């Protein structure tokens, strides 16, 4: 197995190569606004570092979010198109699951993943870690951090939630963004156990579909002029 894993749901653009026994190469850039620019060069770097040609890949894994939409889509469309180009299967892993997996070596018991959903909200889910195994206890959701129950907010917390709302999340863990290496490990485990791995985007929010006055009234300045 040669699996390429990538995720763009958090502030890190992250790519890793897994050879079936372990992570062979991993690269990341933290630049929340420039997913489009960084992702493809990182893929090339990781392939070069692992001495693998694209055609040798056997699987593609991608984080399906939730995460800020524009960045999330860059990862998803890249994985889906790469899978199409190489005629290889693509496997989706919810990105919050990956963060929980990253926290599984740090805590035992329940933990919270809370990532930046912008607009003063967080994407979140609660997990249980028992003897190194991670189980999700709540479906991924998007809410204002103040609206989470006190008991939930007091859990050891991964993601950028505690960085953004330090008064509300009381037990921060030093893991902020998704790692593609961890994603690859989760993906390999799920592929082997035959777990379904849909690649649908986890948006959790409807699009802001404010009826516009005209065709282009929703278009930002500058798009019009030639």
């Amino acid at each position, binding site marked *: 197995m040669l699996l390429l894993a990538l995720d763009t749901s958090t502030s890190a653009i992250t790519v890793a190569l897994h050879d079936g026994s372990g992570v062979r190469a991993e690269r990341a850039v933290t630049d929340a606004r*420039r*997913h*489009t*620019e*960084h*992702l*493809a*060069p990182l*893929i*090339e770097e990781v*392939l070069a570092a692992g001495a693998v040609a*694209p055609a040798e890949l056997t699987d593609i894994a991608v984080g399906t979010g939730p995460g800020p*939409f*524009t960045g999330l*889509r*860059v990862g*998803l*469309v*890249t*994985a*889906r*198109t*790469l*899978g*199409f*180009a*190489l005629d290889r299967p693509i496997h989706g892993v919810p990105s919050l699951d990956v963060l929980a997996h990253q926290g599984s070596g740090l805590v035992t018991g329940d933990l919270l993943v809370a990532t930046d959903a912008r607009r003063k909200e967080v994407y979140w889910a609660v997990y249980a870690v028992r003897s190194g195994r991670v189980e999700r206890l709540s479906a991924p959701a998007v809410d204002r951090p103040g609206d989470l129950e006190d008991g939930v907010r007091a859990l050891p917390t991964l993601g950028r939630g505690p960085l953004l709302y330090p008064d509300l999340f009381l037990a921060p863990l030093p893991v902020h963004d998704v790692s593609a290496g961890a994603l690859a490990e989760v993906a390999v485990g799920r592929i082997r156990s035959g777990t379904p791995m849909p690649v649908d*985007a986890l*948006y959790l929010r409807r*699009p*802001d*579909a*404010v*009826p*516009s*006055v*005209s*065709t*282009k*009234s*929703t*278009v*930002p*300045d*500058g*798009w*019009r*002029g*030639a």
Partner: protein
Amino acid sequence: MSDSGQPLVLGIETSCDETGVGIVRGETLLVDAIASSVDEHARFGGVVPEVASRAHLEAMVPTLERACAEAGVRLADLDAVAVTSGPGLAGALMVGVAAAKALSVGLGVPLYGVNHLASHVAVDIVEHGPLPSPTMALLVSGGHSSLLLVPDVTADIQPLGATIDDAAGEAFDKVARVLGLPFPGGPHIDRVARDGEVTIDFPRGLTTGRDLERHRFDFSFSGLKTAVARWVELRQRAGESVSVADVAASFQEAVVDVLTRKAVDACRTHGVDHLQIGGGVAANSRLRAMAQSRCEAAGVELRVPRPGLCTDNGAMVAALGAQMVMRGRTPSGLDLPADSSMPVTEIQA
């Protein structure tokens, strides 16, 4: 490259609400596959960027698949991938740019990020053959109205003028709204106007006096739109019936008159004997007819691609990409960004 020596190039377009994938071999169009989210926007009366971006993500691979199947092309045979890198809706552009990069990395072929407006001009190469140099281009769409002097569509596009307010297609869409016609309004006005007569003398923006001097090759349609709205409102308030067909015909006549008059003037002034019209509004039947007669009178040869190649599509991107390959242009880097306000003078990113 293939035995024919002509590069096989796939083009991706996602700047607005159409997911387009086209494939050309050299200057021959093999396929133009399109998925549109226009129906999802219709009820909002305009394009909703997030709705468009989500639709692009879902449509990308199916549209790629359809294009390859219909053209009988294997991805492994591609020589290059081209993509619209701007201008357009930022989030929508990024879906296409990321997809194009994935093809470039996966297949090991060069990537060309190209300008959407230049592609609207270049598409006529696969329709009517090489562009004469120089060509005058009138680009009229939902987002743009420009007159461009084009010595070389791959390297030199000189803007002579553009709209100073609404684009021509935007005016069609807004007036259609006033007349109670569905979005996008252009095709509806075109249809309805066929049963009407030009009975109202609506204003022609920037065509007289100081305006003309200062804005010889610029356009303005916002005053026209307001004039139509006021005209309709006054009649309605007075309890008079309004002939939608006559208003549509009169409005359309005003737009088309200005567009063709300025385009032909630009040809004469710059000694250019070929005019090409592109963009969604080029599908307008009255624009085609008036441009034809005015060009004939001025000794200018008119080129207009078929309507399907005038609106946004992937074939136009592939067409320009193939020109870049054939001229030996350096490919874009894999760090190519999407540029929502890419100027028309920047033909390749």
